[in-house]
Each structure stands twice: as structure tokens, then as C-alpha cells.
């Protein structure tokens, strides 16, 4: 299914690289497997799970974490999220544009400025 999707995506996108296709399906998986539930749709984090960006873990550490989380995060085995799928989840996160810096957001005044 995923392979099919990648293939068709790649076919549709024509000259666009595999990476784009991988990132697309990574987003799908990130949503469907429920990573977004605790980490937010763009890895920004929430009260239910830490932010995964801007300092994205290198893939090796990321994979170890997802397979064997240290704490309350449920472990995702290869059975429910294959290595290839996990790679594309990682690629999706890596493909996201950086969030603006707090200093550039006027609605986020610096603490202690009062």
C-alpha cells in the first residue's frame, strides 16, 4: 500500500525527487500511526509529548527511541511501523520548514520585560 503510494506519488510528481515522495507518505504515517496526537502535527510538542523539532534526533537514536521508549510513550514495534515507514516519518519531520523564532513574533513578548 505504502509502496504503491510512493510509486504513484513519484510517478505523479515526475521529475521531483524520491525524498519529496518519502516526505509525503511520512506525513501520512505520522498522522495515521498517531504520532501527531501527542507531538502535534508538525512535531511542535504539547502537554502530552515533547517537541520533536527543531533539534530532530538523528535517525538511529530516533528509531531506538520509538521502538523502546524510556517512559510513558507506547512502544511502536516493526509490526505496526516498519523500519521503512519509520524512516519516512523521520524524513517528514526533517522536511518541515523551521518555525519562526520567538523573537520575531510580536504576540510572544519576552518575559521580564515589564
Amino acid at each position, binding site marked *: 500500500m505504502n509502496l504503491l503510494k510512493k510509486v504513484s506519488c513519484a510517478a505523479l510528481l515526475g521529475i521531483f525527487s524520491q525524498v519529496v515522495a518519502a516526505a509525503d507518505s511520512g506525513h501520512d504515517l505520522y498522522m495515521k500511526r498517531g504520532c501527531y496526537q501527542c507531538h502535534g502535527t*508538525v512535531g*511542535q*510538542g504539547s502537554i502530552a509529548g515533547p517537541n520533536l523539532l527543531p533539534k530532530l534526533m538523528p535517525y538511529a537514536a530516533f528509531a531506538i527511541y520509538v521502538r523502546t521508549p524510556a517512559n510513558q510513550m507506547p512502544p511502536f514495534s516493526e509490526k505496526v511501523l516498519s523500519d521503512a515507514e519509520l524512516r519516512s516519518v523521520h524524513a517528514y519531520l526533517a522536511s518541515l520548514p523551521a518555525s519562526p523564532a520567538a523573537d520575531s513574533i510580536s504576540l510572544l513578548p519576552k518575559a521580564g520585560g515589564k
Partner: protein
Amino acid sequence: MVAAETMGGMHSGHSEDLPGHVSNPGSDFMVDVLKAANIEYVAMMTSSALRGLQESIAYYGKNKAPELIICPHEEIAVGVAHGYAKMAGKPMACMVHSTVGLMHASMAIYNAWCDRVPLMVIGGNTADATKRRQGVEWIHTAVDQAAMVRDFVKFDDFPGSLQHFAESFMRAQALSMTPPMEPVLILADGELQEVPAEDPKSLKIPKMVEVSPPEGDARSVAKAAAILLAAKNPVIVVDRSARTAEGVGLLIKLAEALNAPVVDQCGRMNMPTTHYLNHTWLKAKLLRSADVILALEVGDLWGVVNTISDTPGRPSKRVAKPDVRVISISTNHLYSKSNYGDIQRYQEAELTMAADAQATMPSLIEAIRKGTTAAQATAIAARKQPMQADFLAMRNAARDAAALGWDASPISTARLSQEIWAQIKNDKWSLVSDPFYVSYWQHRLWDISEYKQFIGGSGGYGLGYGLSAAVGAALACKSEGRIAINIQPDGDLLMVPSALWTLAHHKIPLLTLMHNNRAWHQETMHLQRMGTRRDRNAESWREGTLIEEPFVDYAMMAKSMGVWAEGPISDPALLGPAIKRALAVVRSGLPALLDVVTQPR
């Protein structure tokens, strides 16, 4: 046909049964009691079992103090009273119809009970079985109607005379307002409401009294002061510590007397988010290194000292040091019922004071000030600068975290929060919703410094509290021109959508911003854990936890009930201008709702 069988004599055609006129009905006197008890509002779902009282409030009492607030569900009526009490600082009443109405109301009463909130529930019942018409009236009476909620009201009674009603109402109100504050229930007998008051001149309404809350004894207070002064890393944990604005001022003084960081569990507005000793978001680190923990009105003391993991086997571990010295001051030590788990797991404290924290703080502050040695004063003063630095770092870390996903769609809860803040921060405002569902951004980023700027959460986590309590809080805000802001979870709204009608009907200015994550998201995460831990399906959570196919159009829903609304809005750039339009409606004295499609948390 059904009506003729079940609705009693009205349809039976016995014209000789028609009663004559009734002057001076008992329920007029009941209204006098409500007035004497300073009840300003009565939230109600109209009820035949309380028809006498309803007519008396409307006609005899001229529908003013108390004024009827019409709710399409008893659960909403109680929720309104719940939110009102926390904002107004005094109880209002709610009228709920006999058996079935009280059943509807029960979950909301449970919320208020868990949240230590005073409110007067008035139910209807008819004790004399020979006075009940056949059919419905029998079905809507009970031998012991209060039994169904007795586990979560502090007091109930079913007065047999008007004098008894007056005395019981006043007793119930005094008990309700004595910490720990709780809901109470008085049943108004149908006959008592409807037949003329016998010997009205002999009736007396007792004066409303204020009961002074229990204060910690001098010996225990002195011991607490000594323990706190000897501490190197004292931490103050508060939950429902402040009952009034004075409670906030006292907590500041207490914390400053020790330069001790405060962890606010946000059951009320306890500690200003702007104060350098509010270290709420450093909780884990603070509790690990604390040598003394002072817990003020903390409902779950075990959960402060320990933690239990949502992993298979549910392992628990101690968070605090093994030799941490714990002091607990709470009226929870004075009152408990065994059936419901609101009592939480048992945690012993070295020093336990069955006392009201706010009432005890003045003597504790005094004992600390008097007992501080020169060396202790130096050590306490030396804590100030690091506390200030940690506070600033904490606030700025929240700011950096809020920037992540700033431009995302669905809209981030941090962005939602700050778009509102930018437009209300110079007004008189109050946050009347539970920040738990939106990652506590308001407490992490806003300047919340006054008692009335926040009212805590539901207490019992019963869905349907959110909008109902926001309506009640906004009602209390109305007279003082305070803008009430409700960040409204979609799942909660779906429990009580008709509260929107109450807002429109009574022209209650409330700004509601949907936190529309299109899910019962807490359960989404629970189901995710199940599927993943069972290692068989990481997508089964979709079944039954998502609010999709179709999405609910909350703006259309609100408009259908007469509330100004816009949305759905999922582009963050459109949110600010929409809030501006909605606020203009609210500032004109009317409710407004914006359907904002948001990130899950």
C-alpha cells in the same frame, strides 16, 4: 391518549375536582427565604414538580434577585451555578425537576462536589402519596429522592413544613459555604409549595450566617514555621488554596517570607503567573530536590510525592526524596465520603493540619517572620536572585516552545492563546475554562495576577462542565464588566450544546473560542496506547474517538440558537481579525463564538 392516562386529573374531566383560587401559597414564602439567603440567580430547567416555586419567583418575587436563568438541561443548570459560584464568591441556586431532573443534574453536582464549590440545588418531590396524581407524578416522586446524590452533597433535607424549609435552607447554605465548600440539596415538597401557608405570621426566616473557616492551631503552626525555616529547598504546592483575592496576597507573602518556589496545580487562581516565585513548570525538578513540601489545599498529596505510570503493570515510584518533610494544611482532612475516589491514594504527612489554608496563612506568615534567625534570613535572601533567574528562564522556555508550530494549520493552541491575549490583556478579563486541554498555555504565557482572572477546572472531569460553567462565570462577570473568555473543547460542547441558547436568551457576554480538535482527544490517546501496546494495530484508535464524517459546524450550531458566530477557521492568519470581530460583539453585551480548528493539545 398517553397523556390522558398518565398526566393525572387534568384530563379526567371531573370538573367538581377543580380547585378554587389559592392565595398566599407556600412557595411565596420559599421565595422570601431565597431572598433572605441573598440568592441572586436560580438556574433552572422548567419543572412541574417545582411549578409552584417557579411561579412564585416569576410573579411574587418579580423575577429579580433571584432571577431565573433558563437552561435546557438540568446538567447545564448545575454547571452554570458551579461556574457562577467560583466567580461571584457565593452560591446561586438551581432548580431541578424531581427524580429525572436530579438524575440529569447528578454528574454536574459530582463535578461541583469534587471541585469544592458551594451551590444550592432545589429539587421537587411530593411526600404525601395520596396527593400525587396518577401516572407521571408517581413516577416523578421517590421515597428518598436525595439518595441518588447523597454521596456527593454535603447536606440534604426534605422539609415537612415551611418553617422547616426556612431553617434547612439557611443551614444548608451555611454548610455549603463552610470550607470544604460543597453542593447541598433541599427538596421542596409539592404540597408545601402549592397549598396556602398556614399561620404565615408565625413563620420566621433565620438570618444568614457566615461561618468562620477552621484555622490551624498555634502549636502546629509554630512547628510548621520551624520546619520551613530549617529547610534548604522548601517547595510550596497549592491546588485550591485561595478562596478569595486575599488568599492570593497571603500566598505571595508566605512564599516571599521564605523565598520558596510555588507549584500551582491550578485548581484556583492561587499564585500570579508573573511572580518570580511561581515555578509551576519546574515542578518535576523542584519536587525531586525538595527537603520540605508545604501542601496547601492539595487534593492529591500522594500524587505530589509519588507518580504512577500509565504503562503495563502500572508501576509507581516516589518522586520526592525519601526523607522529605511534608506538611499538609487542608480542609480535606475534615471531610470525606468513602464511595467515590475523589479522596485519592493515602499519603501521610509529618504534620497534618485539618484546617483551611487561607485562614491559616496569616498566623503561619507571622510565625515565620518572628521565628527567622539572622542566619536564616541571610539564606532566604540568597535564594531570591536564583529564584528570579529560574523564573525568567521558565517563562522564556515557554515562549520558545510556543513559537514551535506557530504558523501551523490546524492552529496551534499556543497561537490561539496568544491571539486572544493580545486583544484582551489591557481589559478587565477572566479565563473561565480549563487550560489543561490546551497545554496550559495561558498559565505559561499570560500575566494572570488577579484572583478573578481564573477559576480552575471542573473538579470531577465530567464533560459538559466547560460550556455550562463558562455561562455561569460569565453571568457573574457581566455586572462588573469583566470579559469572560472560554476556550471550549468540542467534545465538551457536544454534551451541552443547548447552553448556547441560554447565553443568547439571557444576553450573557461570553467569548467562546472553540478548541476544535475534532476528537475526544484524551480518549484518542488512550486508544492509541491500547493498540500500540497490544502490538496489533496502531490505527484502531480512529474508531470512536474522532468527531468526523461529518465534522460538526459549531458556528452554524451557535447561530441556530441566536449566538453570533464565525468559522471554522483553520488559517492562523485569519484568527486575529476574527477575534476582533467577536470581541466587538462581546463588548456590546452579547455572546460570540468562533469555531477554531486546532491542534489536538
